[in-house]
């Protein structure tokens, strides 16, 4: 669709949120315990944070929950009845950052690939993503390195930019259009001045990223041509405590396990988050494990994330530069550190 660019006065935002609350669940970053910022379902516009650091726990849980019931299996005489479980609650994901918009778009592209994942898509299609651009880099973010921020040119349903008195409202999809149309009186078409201010803000934000970048290109060359020595993987993997946090927290990771829950004599088949860094992830029924050692699992993870093979298939590296793995790594083997090590062929030297 043709992009629509609107503005809304800051004081009118609450009214818009009230309207959205009437039509579905609104999820936004809010205050957690002791100053934490967490995505949660809100009941009032006042709960939404506007000046915040991106929550550590990503919003991917709203398209791909950690425990996701997908099929109900019931006894029926001698046989069984199988009924898919869908979650198509209408949801608005508000004030999500550019990196996370890219993450959700990445996941949706993966789940659209044949065979398409109906459970995922029903939930994702019911979700309207309303993002808030970043006027400054977050302390550990490197989204500029993977074209995932600080502003986006697509992938969002609606993109908000703080212009001071107003928010610029870029509507990118029909879902986005629907979210503004039921409060149409709150919005007006943006002026040329406002659109060019947004461009200036984007340039300013990009310029504020320092030298702290993640050099995917040179790492990709090395990893795709087998020029990373096993000894290096072994060294890096000594600094990984196999917590799995990097993959659980990653906006683009979707590895899962399947497990049945018994409930009242029937079964609920659930998809659950899993991590390729867990030893038992590739454990086979025979007891054989093709990736028994940490170094093999680590090599596999980064091959999937930054090799040319996957770049060609996915059109991007498997990283949105959100920097969460730096915060969550229970070791020192997070994305920028490992990419740096691959590029230099050295680790902690």
């Amino acid at each position, binding site marked *: 669709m043709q992009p629509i660019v609107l503005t809304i006065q800051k004081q009118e935002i609450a009214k818009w949120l009230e309207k959205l609350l009437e039509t579905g*669940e609104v999820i936004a970053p809010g205050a957690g315990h002791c100053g934490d910022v967490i995505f949660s379902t809100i009941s009032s516009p006042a709960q939404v944070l506007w000046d915040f650091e991106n929550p550590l726990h990503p919003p991917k849980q709203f398209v791909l929950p*950690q425990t996701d019931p997908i099929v109900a299996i019931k006894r029926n005489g001698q046989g069984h009845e199988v009924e898919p*479980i869908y979650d198509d609650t209408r949801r608005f994901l508000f004030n999500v950052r550019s990196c996370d918009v890219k993450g959700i778009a990445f996941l949706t592209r993966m789940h659209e690939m044949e065979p398409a994942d109906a459970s995922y898509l029903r939930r994702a299609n019911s979700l309207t993503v309303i993002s808030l651009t970043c006027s400054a880099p977050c302390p550990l973010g490197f989204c500029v390195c993977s074209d995932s921020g600080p502003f986006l040119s697509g992938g969002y349903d609606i993109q908000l930019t703080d212009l001071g008195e107003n928010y610029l409202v870029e509507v990118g999809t029909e879902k986005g259009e629907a979210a503004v149309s039921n409060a149409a009186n709150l919005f007006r078409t943006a002026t040329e001045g406002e659109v060019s201010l947004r461009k200036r803000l984007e340039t300013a934000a990009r310029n504020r990223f320092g030298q702290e970048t993640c050099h995917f290109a040179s790492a990709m060359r090395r990893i795709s041509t087998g020029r990373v020595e096993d000894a290096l993987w072994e060294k890096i993997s000594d600094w990984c*405590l196999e917590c799995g946090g990097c993959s659980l927290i990653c906006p683009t990771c979707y590895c899962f396990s399947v497990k049945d829950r018994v409930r009242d004599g029937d079964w609920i088949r659930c998809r659950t988050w899993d991590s390729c860094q*867990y030893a038992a992830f590739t454990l086979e029924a025979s007891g054989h494990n093709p990736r028994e050692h940490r170094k093999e699992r680590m090599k596999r993870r980064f091959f999937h994330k930054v090799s040319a093979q996957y770049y060609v298939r996915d059109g991007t590296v498997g990283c949105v530069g959100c920097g969460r793995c730096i*915060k969550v790594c229970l070791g020192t083997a997070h994305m920028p550190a490992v990419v740096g090590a691959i590029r230099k062929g050295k680790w902690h030297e």
Partner: protein
Amino acid sequence: MSIPSDMLTIPTTCPFCACGCGFYLLANKGELVGVAPSETHPVSRGRLCARGWAAHEAPLWGSRLREPLVKRNGTLESVSWAEALDHVTGRIKDLIDAGKSIGVLGSPRATNEENYLAGKLARAGFQTNNVDFSYHSICRPLIAGLEEVTGEYACSISLNDIESSETILLIEGNLAKTHPRAAFSVMKAVETGARLITIGYTRTQMASLSSLCLQTAPGGEGEVINGLLAGVLHLGLEDRISVAGHCEGYDALRRDVGAVKMTEEMQRAAEWIARAKRASLLMAPTSGQGDQPRKDAAAFATLAAITGHLNRPGSGLLLLLGRSNVRGACDMGVAPDRLPGYQPFYDGRSQQRLQDLWGKKLPSARGLDAESFLQSVSGLIVLADDPPSVLPMGQRAMAAMERMESLVVLDAFVTPTVGAAHAVLPIASFAETEGTLTSMEGRVQRVRATTDPPGEARPGWQVLAELCARFDVRVSFSSATDVLREIAQAAPRYARIGQRMLDEGWGGTLAEDSARGKFVLHATGVAALTSAERPQVLARDGAFDWGRDPLVSFSPTLSRDYQSQRKLFPNGFVEMCKQDADELGVRAGWQVKLTSVHGDAVVPIQVRTDLKPGVLLVPYAFRDHVANVLCTDSVTAVKVEQA
């Protein structure tokens, strides 16, 4: 079928190891769905280990106890709460009236409130000091050794302190696996240039990061600690102010280590420890016969004392306790010889305080430890403990429980102990109850109810308070907070933890008494285990089997490795080095016969590359397969033959 959401995000404390991490449990429509990390939690700071990330799984997927059960005609039948409580009260009263003894097991998997009430039930209700927890048998020597030297059983540093250490001395029990959060602190320190010295018998992950790995045989840790003590004294690097002002027994120590064998590596390590402005000394339970582990711990604390690290803020010693609330269970007096506050049971002031508080006279006879009283009591109340899975002699514990006249189990999960129970009282898991846990560094933190307990299960503190009332013990609690208020009176240190810290913050730390008394110095004795006739040793590897803990065994994600290992090796195995296997003419999977002074056993072997010749290890999970050989020892000399 469609599911609208109703998300809840509840801050709580990790129930696994004793590091004391915090996170949010996520629930949707009254069911747990996941875990979210917290950036503001002072210990975990946004980081969790694999166990923490899967903390929601066991309460959600596990075999849960949903209704009270009473054994009739050999099978457990569901009954009402009133019936179950009447049954339990009647049976235990009958046993007491018949002059038979009763025991109570608390648990490092239960909250402080539950443990406190379990202790109160035993002492005030049953008039017995037979109260303990199974894991205590593993960590008691560590705690006792530290107490012998410092007069304190509490550790002197926090996990965050480790990160700014210049030198770290680690007695390995595979820290990366047992305490991943602590391992992270060690890694952070090493990354910024700290020197890590490990003492252990295998090439662990931490050993591969170390500047110096002092490899020893199982049970040989003491020899190395003695060597380090000798190194410090030989080089004249003891902290003179500490030694002169705070230490007793210095001359005796000099004499004791005078003839100790000391390698060049030990001297180098001793120098690093003594010269560091900030050092962290971390100790996991060690193996050894008889009193050896306690003596090793005392020598370890002595090393910290003479190098001055016990007197410096941010420098000091940390005992690596295996289970989340070991410290809390000790603090609540879940020990035969300790009252709340870990005060000796004969301490007059503590006795008086408790008698005033409880309105009951305390039992005067010394109690037995868990391993012993399991063999002698007729009635047993088990709170969230599972002796066959935890105690070193698991099978013997199981047999003892099967002999009980009345076995009452309070648990959230179906454990092997539940299978032997005469009455089962279902209680809420950590995800469904209110209470506090105390981490190994002394942080008291809340667990919060995220969902309702399943079926008719009730919060453990309520059930224990009801049992107390039925045994004429004064209780008037309307919440877990009320129990904590009483705890603050029974164990005054807990009075320093304000309710606001617990409710609005992430909890508080039990302040240590700043004026430390004298340190009493000890070297450890070194017993020769092997002889020419029996040149090899067999040792239990590890001090706890997470694979049989319900929080792991019921988690689909966490149980995979453990289950697979048990399926692949139904007869267990012992590990030996390649050289030994070649000399014996055996290969992986072949059987060997092990003979010790206690008895013999035939087990398959596995070969590993990082063991010294002459050392055989049996994983803690498979210890029962060589129970005849090890008996009560954690390490013993064996003869190995092809079977």
